[in-house]
């Protein structure tokens, strides 16, 4: 009988304690220059600011909805900074930090939550697929994409291509996610499954989704799983780097469970006071990913007050830009409804488009007449 309790590896890979102390981990060495560390800090602060701004914009009626990444910045920035340009990332709907790293302008994200687009950016250009809302679906896309990478002969060696897919703790319950684990394992596909276990799927705590820690799921499908401190940007970076390397070299998939916390509501529609206690949030605030990095940097002379002030100022400017650009996002043309439904003509739809154009024009005519 296989044992489902005893595990002799450490449960959580951590390189930076909540107090900002560096820890060494034999399996995940990390050697970052001060510049790189400052870069990570900047990322964390800026994406948090974009997020705060977006929440405010939603409150002001500028966005239909926003899914906040508050608390998950380190998991996202750390993992995304492990990616190389040739890699491909598949987000869920909360990976604003990943989008940031992949060079997708926050404006594009806001456009989707404002309802002016259903997507926004060109996935190939950024190495980032569009957000996916139907939970778990993207795990199979990533696996298929990784199977394509294999067929292109683009794995093996250091310059191989790897794929990463993001999903939540709730998503591990979906059939699709488990099928993706299995397809990836059977095909030895170069895909890293990056699960942000933020402890909640809307109102459901982890124990409604799984009886055991999520990283263990991987072994059941025959590939390695690891739990990393998702509020530790160093550990998230180091573990993801290693997993991507594993994939890149043709050794197949890995599952990373980034142990983190959704500090905000599920989305701006949600009211977490209905289902979770305030004390939990307080506890996690002490593990804040930004505070600990700042503490480390300050204590170790990686940055001075000027640097922190400069980053804050940059964040303010970014926030302002986001605010202005969001408000300025133009509404799409009504005929965009028909745009790119099909690549080639489709008689019925083309007729509908033409009729609708006439219908719209009839109002304009009427309006023009009324104005005379």
């Amino acid at each position, binding site marked *: 009988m296989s044992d489902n309790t005893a595990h002799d590896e450490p449960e959580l890979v951590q390189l930076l304690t909540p107090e900002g102390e560096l820890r060494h981990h034999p399996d995940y060495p990390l050697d970052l220059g001060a510049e790189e560390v400052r870069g990570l800090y900047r990322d964390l602060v800026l994406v948090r600011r974009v997020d705060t701004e977006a929440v405010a914009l939603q409150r002001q009626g500028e966005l239909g909805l926003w899914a906040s990444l508050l608390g998950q910045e380190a998991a996202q920035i750390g993992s995304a900074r492990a990616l190389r340009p040739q890699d491909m990332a598949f987000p869920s709907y909360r990976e604003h930090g990943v989008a940031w790293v992949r060079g997708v302008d926050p404006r594009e994200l806001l456009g989707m939550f404002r309802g002016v687009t*259903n997507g926004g950016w060109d996935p190939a250009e950024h190495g980032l697929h569009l957000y996916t*809302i139907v*939970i778990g679906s993207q795990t199979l896309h990533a696996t298929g994409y990784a199977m394509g990478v294999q067929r292109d002969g683009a794995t093996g060696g250091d310059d191989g291509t790897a794929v990463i897919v993001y999903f939540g703790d*709730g998503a591990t319950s979906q059939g699709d996610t488990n099928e993706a684990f299995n397809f990836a394992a059977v095909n030895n596909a170069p895909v890293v499954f990056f699960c942000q276990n933020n402890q909640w799927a*809307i*109102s459901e705590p982890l124990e*409604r989704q799984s009886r055991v820690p999520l990283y263990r799921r991987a072994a059941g499908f025959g590939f390695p799983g690891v739990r990393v401190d998702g509020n530790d940007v160093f550990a998230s970076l180091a573990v993801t780097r290693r997993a991507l390397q594993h994939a890149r070299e043709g050794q197949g998939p890995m599952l990373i469970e980034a142990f983190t916390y959704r500090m905000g509501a599920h989305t701006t529609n949600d009211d977490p006071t209905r289902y979770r206690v305030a004390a939990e949030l307080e506890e996690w605030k002490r593990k804040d990913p930004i505070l600990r990095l700042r503490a480390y940097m300050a204590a170790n002379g990686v940055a001075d007050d000027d640097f922190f002030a400069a980053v804050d100022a940059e964040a303010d400017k970014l926030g302002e830009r986001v605010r202005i650009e969001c408000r300025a996002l133009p509404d799409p043309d009504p005929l965009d409804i*028909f745009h790119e439904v099909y690549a080639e003509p489709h008689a019925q739809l083309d007729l509908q488009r033409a009729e609708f154009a006439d219908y719209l024009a009839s109002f304009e005519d009427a309006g023009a007449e009324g104005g005379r």
Partner: protein
Amino acid sequence: MSVNLTIGKAINAGLRRAMEADPKVLVMGEDVGKLGGVFRVTDQLYKDFGADRVIDTPLAESGIVGTAIGLAMRGYRPVCEIQFDGFFFPATNQTFTQLAKLRRRSAGALGMPVVLRIPYGGGIGAVEHHSESPEAYFAHTAGLRVITVANAVDAYWMIQQAIASPDPVVFFEPKRRYYDKADVDTDAALESAYPMGAARVARPGTDVTLLAYGPMVKTALQAAEADDDHSIEVIDLRSISPVDYDTVTESVRRTGRLVITHEAPVSGGVGAEIAARVTESCFYHLEAPVIRVGAFDTPYPQSRLEEHYLPDLDRVLDGVDRAFAF
């Protein structure tokens, strides 16, 4: 006792009454417990009936419907909440190949008193997959009953009728109308409620029959109100499978014209079947072909376009005009 309830609260009250009446009734789905569902339709049920009867399931729709089938086999009457229309699809296999077929397969040995509650339709400014109208898929699937409500009175009674039904019932909730209110006599006997399978003339008229269901009933009534040129009879279909053709054809034979409106894309929508059938049975009464007013045959667009995508008052009136232009 007459209580002024929103549609959402009326469903909640109906669920509560069904749970009180029959300990075998269970509520299950994502976030239906402490949260009371993302629309609060199961509000307070968890507190009052406990985790055994109000089950926060793992995030897996196939699992929800599949385990509901098993619970039904064991004598329970599960009411499953599918959080949004667009998230039903992982449960298609369990619903279409299992739930819908098990009674006939077993020659009646297995009853499937399972209810799927699905908030549906657009108009709430939501992101993708939160505004779908998938009812035609269900209506084309033998073995299911498909119903929807347009007001709080029906909401209160029809959810109870759905739960009492020995057949699987798909119960579509018009999410953009959740807050519409009406007075509900919550003390009446369930048996005295208007039958689940029957359509209702929501507003009598003489010139044209305007058939709607769910969220479009309100729009249809507004159209009837707004149209000074024609006397529009509005029918609230209520049951999508079966369709109450007696009520529909009686009306069409009187008015000679039929306009059907729904939020779902026109092609292959529920309106197609009704148009085809009514045309067959009222061929010599129809002064014009049946006109359908629905969404375009495209994916549901980004929310800033939904007012153009969904049939609105103007489009419905335009449809009525087309019915008279023949």
